[in-house]
C-alpha cells in the first residue's frame, strides 16, 4: 500500500495495521525518515528551522507503486507500506515511512533498506530547507545513488 499525504501519520497505528489479525508474518522491518534541525555537514550550514517537500502529483504515486511492487516480488513480502508526506514540516516531524513484512527477518530487513534507497533516487520529491539565512533547495547526494546501485544486478 502507498500513500502520499500532507498530514503527519501515526507510526504505531500504521505498523499495527500491517500485522493485525495475521499469523504468517515472522518479521516486520520499518524505517522512518524525520526532519533534522541540524545541517547535514558538521560545522557547516545554519540550522534548519523547517522543510518543505514539493512533489509531482500523479508521477509520485506511480513511482511509489512501482517501487513497492518491485520490493514485494523481489523479497516475497507478505505486507508492505510506503507513506510519503509533502508540504511544510518542522524539525522532529516524520517525512516518510517504509515498512516490509515477511516470513523471515532477512527479507524484511533487506526490503526495508531497498524501499528507502530506491525511493530516495526515484520518487519525484524535492526538499527545500528554511534556515536563518533563507531558503535553499537541497542538493541530491551522490551517496544516495551509490546506495540505490547496490540493489542492481552486478554488471556483466
Amino acid at each position: 500500500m502507498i500513500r502520499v499525504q500532507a498530514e503527519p501519520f501515526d507510526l504505531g497505528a500504521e505498523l499495527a495495521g500491517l500485522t493485525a489479525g495475521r499469523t504468517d508474518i515472522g518479521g516486520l522491518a520499518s524505517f522512518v525518515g524525520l526532519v533534522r534541525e541540524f545541517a547535514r555537514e558538521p560545522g557547516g550550514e545554519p540550522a534548519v528551522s523547517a522543510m518543505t517537500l514539493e512533489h509531482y502529483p500523479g508521477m509520485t504515486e506511480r513511482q511509489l507503486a512501482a517501487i513497492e511492487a518491485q520490493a514485494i516480488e523481489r523479497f516475497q513480502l507478505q505486507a508492505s507500506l510506503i507513506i510519503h508526506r509533502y508540504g511544510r514540516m518542522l524539525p522532529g516531524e516524520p517525512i516518510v515511512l517504509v515498512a516490509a513484512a515477511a516470513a523471515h527477518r532477512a527479507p524484511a530487513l533487506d526490503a526495508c533498506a531497498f524501499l528507502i534507497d530506491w525511493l530516495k533516487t526515484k520518487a519525484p520529491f524535492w526538499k527545500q530547507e528554511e534556515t536563518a539565512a533563507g531558503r535553499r533547495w537541497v542538493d541530491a547526494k551522490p551517496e544516495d545513488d551509490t546506495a540505490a546501485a547496490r540493489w542492481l544486478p552486478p554488471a556483466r
Partner: protein
Amino acid sequence: MKILYFAWLRTKAGCAEEDVTPPAEVTTVAALMDWLAEQRPGFAEAMTAKGVIRAAVNQAYAEPTDPVRPGDEVAFFPPVTGG
C-alpha cells in the same frame, strides 16, 4: 503539449506549468529541451548551470532520445531529494 517544471527549475523557468505547441520537427526530449531553452532564457540558463536536468514523459522517467508527441505531459526537474 503540457510542460511542467519542479523545484529550482520552476523558479528558473519562471512558471510551474505551460501549454506549448513546438514545431513538428521537435520529436524528442532533447529537441524539446533545446526549443524550450530558446523560448525561456531562464530554462536555458538552468540547463547549463547546475547538474543534470531529469525529464519525465507522461509521468515516467525519459531519456533525451525518447520521443515526445503532441498531447504528452512532459516534466523537467532536478535530481530528486525525497525520502
